[in-house]
């Protein structure tokens, strides 16, 4: 059970997992620049749902179209190929894979904490997700080498029946 886990604690775990993805799969440096409440600006990026026994979460790695393209190029090893550019589906696939690995890192860390976290499948979104009244949200600015992005996290407690309402 992790109902006593605050959103900030979830974000800390997510940032640690993001750092792991940055230094292994993306092969670069990683730092957190700032923490702030999310704003409803239009962004591009990938989200993945996570679910524990008593909480539903959504983690997003977001930025501009250029941010996502740069992250995709890095993941796909295309940094040294100025001519080649990943297609839109390849960018969506690559950024989705980054959040998939990030969520796997959260799962491994939380499942070692006497709890169970299940993952959904990533989706790629151009737009803004607006939290409902029941959802808490937080955001951190992150930098992968010189690529600035945002890690967004939503949390909603589940009812005793295990669903949202």
């Amino acid at each position, binding site marked *: 059970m992790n109902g006593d886990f605050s959103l900030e604690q979830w974000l800390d775990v997510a940032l640690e997992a993001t750092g792991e993805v940055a230094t292994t*799969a993306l092969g670069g440096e990683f730092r957190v620049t700032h923490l702030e409440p999310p704003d409803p600006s239009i962004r591009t990026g990938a989200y993945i749902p996570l679910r524990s026994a008593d909480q539903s979460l959504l983690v997003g790695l977001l930025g501009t179209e250029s941010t996502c393209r740069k992250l995709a190029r890095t993941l796909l090893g295309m940094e040294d190929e100025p001519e080649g550019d990943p297609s839109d589906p*390849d960018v969506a696939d690559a950024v*989705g894979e980054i959040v998939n690995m990030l*969520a796997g890192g959260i*799962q491994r860390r939380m499942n070692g904490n006497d709890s*169970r976290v299940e993952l959904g*499948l990533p989706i790629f979104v151009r737009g803004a997700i607006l939290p409902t009244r029941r959802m808490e949200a937080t955001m951190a600015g992150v930098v992968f080498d010189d690529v600035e992005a945002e890690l967004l996290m939503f949390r909603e407690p589940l009812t005793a029946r295990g669903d949202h309402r």
Partner: protein
Amino acid sequence: MKILVVDDSKAMRMIVRRALRQAGFDGHSVEEASDGKEALAAIQRSRPDVVLTDWNMPEMTGIEMLEALREQNIDVRVGFVTSQSTPEMVQRARDAGALFLLAKPFTPDRFKAVLEPVLQ
């Protein structure tokens, strides 16, 4: 040696191919499949020596594919390369005869250490 890389993410299939090259396993023939069902057909057709597969995929998951292979008495060596890793998954993979379950993301050293005993 013939290696089949199975993942619904094209990006991940490219990453596994690159990791194989970076780990020095570049003399092998590598084929790809994008889900368990496609992989099952490819294995029945071309009998690879090693299958590196994701777990969670549409149509047929990696573990369903492995269990189907065992039911058909096809004794190909299979290892999982997957983001998700729970004790239940590890146990189910082990029960089905998987060689390993390598969690993503992985370092080049970790990838080489896990694959070396299989590919050498």
